[in-house]
């Protein structure tokens, strides 16, 4: 045999999937090997005579190929920067760097293997019983435990290449492309349904692929029919990972270029589960030695890859699969020295080893046979995951010795193939075809008339464990002895046992080990398997990458239409919720003084904006705001505060009356989404009879606040159809008109900064144009753009609070100094009972203006006011005021301190205490509001 193919590669097999003309070079633990195209990592390693491929999780025992499929817990590798790669599934690629995970220093000599020697002391859950004292040493022990555990390595750097997600909407989704799945897909498609057929392996065919010539021929003909059928879409190397409510199904497609996996989200009318059967291991001493393999692992290696897994084989079997494996082995030139058939009384006691690998077996008749390969065919597990996820509970079939789907399947979910029963190929095809038709009937017209032929498991021997103890969970290194000990200690239900020993909790997720775990527990409890029950299978069916689940992020960053201008004029961005907006343009203090003395403009586009229309809008406003809205004239605007049912302030803003049944509501920038949800929730669930329609127009308008004593002059240069004089357009009014030729602009006379100001909302497409025009015409006035920081300083000078900053999760209405606004004489409104209670009791903190006694000191926001060790308040906002040339604050304090003139101690984050004085008003600047009204 040439080195290129590997020394254990045999002659051509009928169903072989490797291409003997294409050699692939890869390294395993630093050593160069060659394989063939079509090889998996494991088939190539086996072809090269590598027997020990990994070390086990806890005891670091040597491990070789066991189940030889995707789920094989012994075949996890680090491949390049990818951890936990399934080596019995992943195909070789040129230059692949494969290494064993979690060994030190090497696979051959692994320090962790001392655990093996200590295994009698390190039974499952041993760590709960030790390292208790002295307490200070536990962190050190913990580090040691961590060292022994763990899979592969993830790199610290590298980025996530987003894999785009897709959607699919078939009528029928068939999970599994074996004979039953293909048959179901074909008959559903023939019946007119659009079918999506998903197969985990690289090729359709299921177990037929490693079968006899006849079986291969059947597979081939089915494949051809499927490929030719226009109504079937087939995905191979893809897996149905989860089934969620209403047949919302996740499918993972693997092996794509650039991205590893991608997610397809499928809404299917009906789901056909046809995942076949998984061969279960058998529990006996030495069952995890390299060289002990399940019959299907051997069939795959021999018939798909023409690889000899050993030289001298013993086969222990309870079914025909073992016989088939023996035949395959003989066919490729392996010496099958003995077939021990449990159906004829044969029994296996233990496997023995030499130099860490299998060297022989001891049989129940007392004989010992030398061998380097032990094939085990004990029976099957039906992977009922998808049915479990559809609400079905599996039941134990005594005769078939496996759990099968329970009665009462969801009527949109069907099952066929090995999951349901055993039979000849014809029987399987017939059942699949009938179920496919049923699925199609249910998907298209709702009523199922086809009757599926009876199909149930054949009798199988209950071969779960033998007379000696062995490994039950290969992923987690849990032995039958561990399980028995734990059960006798009182962890004697499946749920407790699994949590205590971690059996079934590893990467194989119970597919290989659940049934044996349950069987051992049943024996410990002296119960039947049925009484013991099984665990819940949780999604996903197989582990899926974070990358596939994440896909591409569709969480947009929001910018106003003026963002380009800001960025080209020195605007420095700040993240404000979903928005990016300028914090300042270089010097916030200068921006403040320019606004206070002349004029400035700020981009306030992120403000939440809603148009409310309908005859019942005032009812809604009266419900959600604490103040009254019935008498708001057309053309007027009003400030309002919203509280939750707990009376806690959750948003504020201004709402204007545009025309008879149209209102325009503004909210805080960060609160917009929450307010929208709140309004809709009350409308839809509380008052569906109200005539109110809400349109979110937040990004339909660009919003600009023009502030400063010269704002009117500036605006009047651009507006001709609205009289902007104080008499015609007073404070707290709105007008709609044309600005710089742009019609349909809303102008509001309000002012957060405390200056005369106009907030204009212009159609978004004209935002940049209007902004630039304002800047141009404002040049004569020395106009400045100003950012969030300048606005924050000015609103603090003016004493306006910011919801969420000066209020918190317990700040009820009367705490914020809005007593004048809250109208308890109004009919019921949201939060009224709580506000009434607060009003009567006087409880809760109070928001006050505070001036630090040292005008140069600006206490950090969140500095606490602590008296006698008890928190009595805190600074919620603080800035140095360029206008007043001193530090100013807002703070929440207990009512006793909320008296003008009170001196309070403010504890800075570094522990220093400074003094501050409680002021008469929140506002430090123009408390009467003369400027606003001018």
């Amino acid at each position, binding site marked *: 045999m040439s080195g290129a193919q590997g020394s254990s590669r045999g002659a051509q097999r009928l169903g072989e999937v490797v291409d003997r003309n294409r050699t692939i070079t890869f390294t395993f633990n630093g050593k160069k090997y060659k394989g063939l195209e079509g090889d998996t990592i494991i088939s190539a390693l086996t072809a090269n005579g590598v027997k020990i491929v990994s070390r086990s999780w806890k005891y670091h025992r040597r491990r070789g190929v066991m189940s030889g499929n995707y789920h094989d817990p012994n075949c996890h590798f680090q491949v390049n920067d990818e951890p936990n790669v399934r080596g019995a599934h992943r195909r070789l690629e040129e230059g692949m760097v494969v290494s064993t995970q979690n060994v030190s220093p090497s696979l051959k000599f692994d320090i962790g293997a001392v655990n093996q020697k200590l295994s009698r002391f390190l039974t499952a859950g041993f760590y*709960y019983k030790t390292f208790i004292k002295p307490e200070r040493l536990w962190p050190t022990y913990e580090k040691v435990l961590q060292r022994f555990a763990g899979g592969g390595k993830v790199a*610290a750097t590298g980025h996530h290449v987003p894999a785009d997600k897709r959607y699919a909407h078939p009528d029928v989704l068939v999970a599994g492309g074996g004979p039953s799945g293909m048959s179901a897909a074909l008959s559903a498609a023939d019946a007119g349904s659009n079918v999506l057929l998903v197969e985990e392996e690289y090729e359709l065919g299921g177990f037929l692929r490693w079968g006899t010539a006849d079986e291969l021929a059947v597979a081939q003909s089915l494949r051809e029919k499927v490929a030719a059928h226009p109504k079937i879409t087939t995905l191979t190397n893809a897996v149905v990972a989860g089934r969620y409510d209403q047949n919302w199904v996740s499918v993972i497609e693997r092996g794509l270029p650039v991205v590893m996996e991608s997610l397809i989200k499928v809404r299917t009318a009906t789901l056909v589960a046809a995942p076949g059967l998984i061969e279960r291991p058998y529990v006996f001493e030495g069952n995890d030695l390299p060289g002990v393999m399940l019959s299907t692992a051997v069939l795959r290696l021999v018939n798909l890859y023409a690889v000899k897994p050993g030289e001298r084989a013993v086969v222990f079997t309870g079914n025909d699969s073992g016989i088939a494996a023996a035949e395959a082995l003989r066919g490729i030139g392996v010496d099958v020295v003995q077939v021990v058939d449990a159906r004829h009384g044969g029994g296996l006691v233990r496997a023995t080893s030499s130099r860490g690998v299998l060297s022989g077996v001891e049989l129940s008749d007392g004989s010992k046979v030398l061998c380097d390969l032990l094939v085990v065919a004990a029976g099957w597990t039906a992977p009922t995951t998808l049915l479990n996820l559809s609400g079905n509970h599996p039941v134990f079939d005594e005769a078939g010795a496996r759990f099968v789907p329970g009665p009462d399947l969801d009527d949109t979910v069907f099952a066929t193939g090995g999951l349901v029963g055993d039979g000849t190929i014809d029987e399987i095809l017939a059942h699949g075809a009938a179920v496919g038709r049923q699925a199609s009937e249910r998907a298209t017209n709702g009523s199922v008339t086809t009757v599926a032929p009876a199909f149930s498991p054949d009798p199988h021997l209950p071969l779960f464990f033998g007379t000696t103890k062995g490994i039950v969970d290969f992923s987690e290194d849990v032995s039958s002895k561990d399980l028995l000990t734990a059960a006798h200690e009182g*962890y004697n239900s499946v749920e407790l046992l699994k949590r205590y020993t971690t059996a079934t909790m590893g990467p194989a997720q119970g597919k290989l080990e659940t049934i044996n775990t349950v069987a051992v527990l049943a024996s410990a409890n002296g119960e039947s398997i049925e009484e013991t029950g099984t665990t819940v299978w*949780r999604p996903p069916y197989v582990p899926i990458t974070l990358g596939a*689940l994440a896909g591409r*992020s569709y969480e947009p960053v929001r910018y106003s239409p003026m963002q380009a201008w800001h960025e080209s004029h020195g605007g420095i961005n700040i993240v404000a919720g979903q928005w990016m907006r300028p914090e300042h343009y270089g010097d916030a203090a200068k921006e403040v003084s320019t606004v206070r003395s002349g004029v400035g403009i700020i981009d306030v586009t992120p403000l939440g904006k809603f148009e409310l229309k309908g005859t019942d809008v005032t009812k809604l406003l009266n419900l959600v705001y604490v103040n009254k809205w019935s008498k708001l004239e057309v053309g007027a605007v009003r400030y309002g505060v919203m509280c939750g049912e707990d009376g806690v302030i959750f948003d504020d803003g201004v709402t204007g009356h545009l025309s008879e049944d149209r209102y325009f509501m503004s909210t805080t920038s960060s609160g917009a989404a929450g307010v929208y949800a709140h309004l809709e929730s009350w409308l839809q669930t509380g008052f569906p009879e109200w005539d109110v329609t809400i349109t979110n127009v937040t990004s339909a308008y660009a919003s600009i606040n023009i502030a400063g004593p010269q704002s009117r002059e500036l605006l009047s240069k651009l507006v001709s159809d609205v009289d902007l004089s104080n008499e015609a357009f007073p404070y707290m009014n709105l007008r709609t008109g044309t600005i710089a030729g742009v019609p349909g602009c809303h102008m509001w006379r309000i002012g957060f900064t405390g200056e005369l100001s106009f907030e204009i909302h212009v159609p978004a497409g004209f935002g940049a144009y209007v902004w630039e025009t304002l800047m141009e015409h404002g040049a004569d006035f020395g106009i400045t753009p100003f950012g969030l920081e300048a606005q924050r300083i000015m609103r603090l000078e003016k004493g306006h609070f910011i919801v969420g*900053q000066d209020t918190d999760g317990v700040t009820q209405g009367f705490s914020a100094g809005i007593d004048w606004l809250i109208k308890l004489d109004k009919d019921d409104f949201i939060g009224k009972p709580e506000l009434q209670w607060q009003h009567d009791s006087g409880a809760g903190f109070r928001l006050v203006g505070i001036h630090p006694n040292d005008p140069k000191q600006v206490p950090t926001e969140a500095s606490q006011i602590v008296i006698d060790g008890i928190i009595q308040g805190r600074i919620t906002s603080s800035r140095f005021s360029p206008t007043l040339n001193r530090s100013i604050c807002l703070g929440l304090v207990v009512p006793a301190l909320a008296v003008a003139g009170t001196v309070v101690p403010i504890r800075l984050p570094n522990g220093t205490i400074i003094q501050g004085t409680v002021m008469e008003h929140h506002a430090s600047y123009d408390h009467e509001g003369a400027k606003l009204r001018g």
Partner: protein
Amino acid sequence: MSRNKPVKYSALGLFKRGLSGKEWPRVWRDVDLKKTYDVVIIGAGVHGLSTAYYLAKNHGVKNVAVVDRAYVGGGGSGRNTAILRSNYLTPEGVRFYDRSVDLYRHLAADLNFNVMFAPRGHLTLAHNDGALRTMRWRAEVNKVQGIDSEVIGPEEIKKLVPYMDVSDDTRYPILGALYHPPGGIIRHDAVNWGYARAADAMGVEIHQKTEVLGINTAGGKVTGVRTNRGDVSAPIVINCTAGWATLIADMAGVKLPIITHPLQAAVTEPVQMFLSSVVVSGSLHVYVSQTDRGELVFGASTDPYAAYSMRSSLEFTEELAGHVLELMPSISKMRVLRQWSGLCDITPDFSPIMGFTEVEGFLVDVGWGTYGFKAGPASGEAMAQLAATNKTPEIISAFDLARFEEGRLASERGAAAVGH
């Protein structure tokens, strides 16, 4: 079988039994349900079990039954992500949770059961200046109370979590974090089993697969419970059923201001340790920690709807993965192994309800929402004292049921929503 003779767990014991092959005694006994107890506790989660343990240990009340319709730790206590911390927002909350972390610190020795307490440090990330301000607020409140808690910047975060992307060109740049060194994780099941075993050793009975079907009262007083295994009388019944709390309270005619929401979690396959801290991001609705086994454990905020269903959703893992990769983009090849869901009993102020109800003898220890595991020891200790002395201990006085009628909310909204 009467009393469970306690056999001490130790390295020496493991060694001896390893040599002799002698089995360990049962963790707790399976006994018949009696007709009468001094106290019946409904729910064998951490709250029910710790209450039973402290009743026996601190007050000598041992004629106690803990009944659960499923198995020990089958509710939230076996499904949570086991984050411990005390950096809450209200002084009452800080003081209470700090007591709990303190008890956890010495719990292994106290219970003679290694609960794997791992104070690895807890980071709450801030992605905008509002969040940063809240972090600063929490830090200041914590410091006044003597809790180790401070706001740190991106460079320090990077030192603690080398895999974190702290650059400023990400979708959600990290501006800083609240760092709480004593915060960490623990092995939840071990806590449950440890309490159960230690309580059992003092005579407390643990009855699994025992479902409470009704609560008997007479003249405004509780007289016992009805179960699937028969009636049991007791002058004191404590409701420790978290997500099912309102159903049990209804049986006694007590209304609780609680809504049950599902909360989901997920875990990845194990990889070598690379994340020592617990990382929480409120804005991204996600948190992550790595277990000693090497798995990453993820959680998020509660599902937005009320339900008793414990089904998982695909959206949960999608959003979670997206947000985790925002924080640590290099781990995109890790695989999600399993997802699950539990129930959370949410109160209006995100604080628990502990204490008396209008039905004499019917006590509640509920409203644990998404944060109750860390509270297990302190609430058990306080509830035991309350049950034994018929007086509310000072440490839980802010958390009584009456506060909802008297307007004394103890809001942890800002500190509990995602942080758990």
